């Protein structure tokens, strides 16, 4: 078991129900109260804790206030509709919110229904009250403090806490005695790491020159999906879109301050991608390439691009890369240069792969998108490819090369959070050779 690091200083605790399920549950308010009472009793049966229900008028004074909420509800932990997160509670403490216990009102709260009909309120309530009393999640099996919901635990009158949870609660509030409550003694176990007495001062960051490029103009040199985040490179700067979909900053960061090991004066990156097998990150600049382990270039680089063995259909060695990405649809690596592309099959332990047979092929095989893109990433639903050019991007869905409609979208608006008015007009879809003629249109 794990303790949260705080507990109530008294053992007589008040609880109050502020609201009841409104949306999908068929439980009546009195049934809900009965279930919650028994869920608290599970904890007080084993310790010196005593719980007292308070009236609505006194609810403000209650340590444990219970409510059924949905979506955003002003505590920083929004619920997410049916499934997903079910409930949460705040650990003991002095603030008003401590001890509050919230259940997602968009769940179908039930009691003793078969698994799959709904979510058993008693089971979840016992777990959440564990938090409200000072227990963290446990990896022990069995333990009611395991974070995952695994179906109803049984009857409210006969349920017994697993030993892991009994030990945890007794560490905080002592073993149940017949006499009045006795405060727990001795240090909490396991001991929590000591926190620094004073917060460390923030380290200074060298700000990029305010003369940096305008993100709303587009024209990115390279775009890459690295560790599930999207990096947009332009000149000596880059922007970074986190997995949450927000930019780390509207202002760009300096490439040399983050990606260590590129030559001084680097002011254009042709393409970047993350390798599938070992997570190394490849930077292509002109006729050279670098291999990065995380944010630091590995020793021995740059090396000549010719090591990739890419020859044009005319037999000429490729001297520059326009785009590179791993297509999630099939796991192959694709490299574009000029109006041709090569496919690679990565093998474990191989730093530079060799092009697959029958390549290069014409980039025009990717219908409806620019044949010489600024860069390409695989993103979104399995196998979707995003082609970037100028201030636009095109999406080929689900591993396709040849779909009916491919429309350009605004990179500025959709990725760079620019107002639509500054994003400029969208181009006409290039290389769009398909024609759909139906009897009705």
């Amino acid at each position: 078991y794990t303790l949260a690091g705080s507990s109530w200083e008294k053992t007589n605790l008040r609880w109050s129900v502020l609201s009841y399920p409104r949306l999908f549950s068929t439980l009546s308010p009195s049934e809900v109260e009965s279930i919650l009472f028994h869920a608290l009793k599970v904890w007080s049966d084993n310790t010196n804790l005593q719980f007292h229900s308070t009236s609505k008028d006194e609810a403000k004074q209650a340590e444990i206030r219970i409510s059924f909420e949905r979506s955003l509800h002003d505590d920083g932990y929004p619920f997410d509709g049916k499934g997903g997160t079910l409930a949460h509670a705040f650990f003991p403490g002095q603030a008003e919110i401590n001890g509050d216990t919230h259940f997602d009102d968009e769940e179908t709260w039930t009691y003793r229904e078969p698994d799959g009909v709904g979510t058993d309120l008693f089971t979840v309530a016992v777990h959440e009250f564990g938090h409200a009393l000072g227990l963290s999640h446990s990896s022990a099996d069995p333990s009611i403090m395991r974070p995952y919901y695994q179906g109803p635990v049984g009857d409210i009158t006969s349920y017994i806490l697993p030993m892991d949870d009994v030990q945890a609660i007794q560490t905080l509030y002592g073993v149940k005695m017949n006499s009045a409550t006795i405060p727990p003694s001795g240090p909490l176990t396991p001991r929590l790491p000591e926190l620094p007495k004073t917060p460390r001062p923030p380290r200074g960051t060298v700000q990029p020159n305010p003369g940096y490029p305008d993100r709303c103009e587009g024209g990115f040199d390279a775009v890459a999906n690295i560790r599930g985040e999207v990096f947009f490179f332009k000149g000596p700067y880059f922007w970074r879109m986190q997995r949450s979909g927000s930019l780390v900053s509207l202002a760009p960061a300096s490439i040399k301050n983050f990606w260590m090991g590129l030559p001084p004066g680097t002011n254009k990156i042709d393409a970047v991608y993350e390798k599938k097998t070992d997570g190394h990150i490849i930077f292509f600049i002109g006729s050279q390439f670098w291999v990065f382990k995380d944010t630091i270039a590995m020793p021995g680089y740059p090396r000549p691009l010719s090591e990739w063995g890419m020859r044009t259909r005319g037999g000429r060695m490729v001297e520059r890369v326009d785009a590179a990405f791993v297509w999630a649809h099939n796991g192959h690596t694709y490299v574009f240069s000029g109006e041709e592309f090569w496919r690679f099959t990565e093998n474990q332990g191989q730093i530079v792969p060799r092009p697959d047979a029958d390549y290069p092929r014409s980039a025009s095989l990717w219908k409806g998108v620019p044949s010489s893109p600024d860069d390409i990433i695989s993103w979104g639903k399995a196998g979707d490819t995003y082609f970037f050019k100028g201030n636009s991007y095109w999406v080929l869905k689900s591993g396709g090369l040849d779909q009916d409609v491919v429309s350009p979208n605004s990179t500025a608006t959709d990725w760079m959070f620019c107002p639509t008015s500054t994003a400029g007009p969208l181009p006409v879809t290039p290389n769009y050779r398909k024609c759909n003629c139906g009897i009705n249109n």
Partner: protein
Amino acid sequence: APAPAPDLYSRGMDWLSRYGYLPPPDPRTGRLQTKEGMESAIRQMQRFAGLKETGKLDEATLKQMSMPRCSLPDIVSSEDRLRKRRKKR
């Protein structure tokens, strides 16, 4: 086998951050999650959930991540505690 689709991968990383296995993105330091750090986080999650420790977002792991659960993190780092303490102050 193809790599997990980026959105699955992203969601996996989000899940690991949300429940305390990965440090949350820190715009101030702008640090990048290391490959080793991500594998270690996945292993820790798998160990906590009683799954086979592969360090990969395999089918069993993704299935576990989709199970209904409590919103609270499984791992509360000292960094989070410090942040909460600062916020409270």
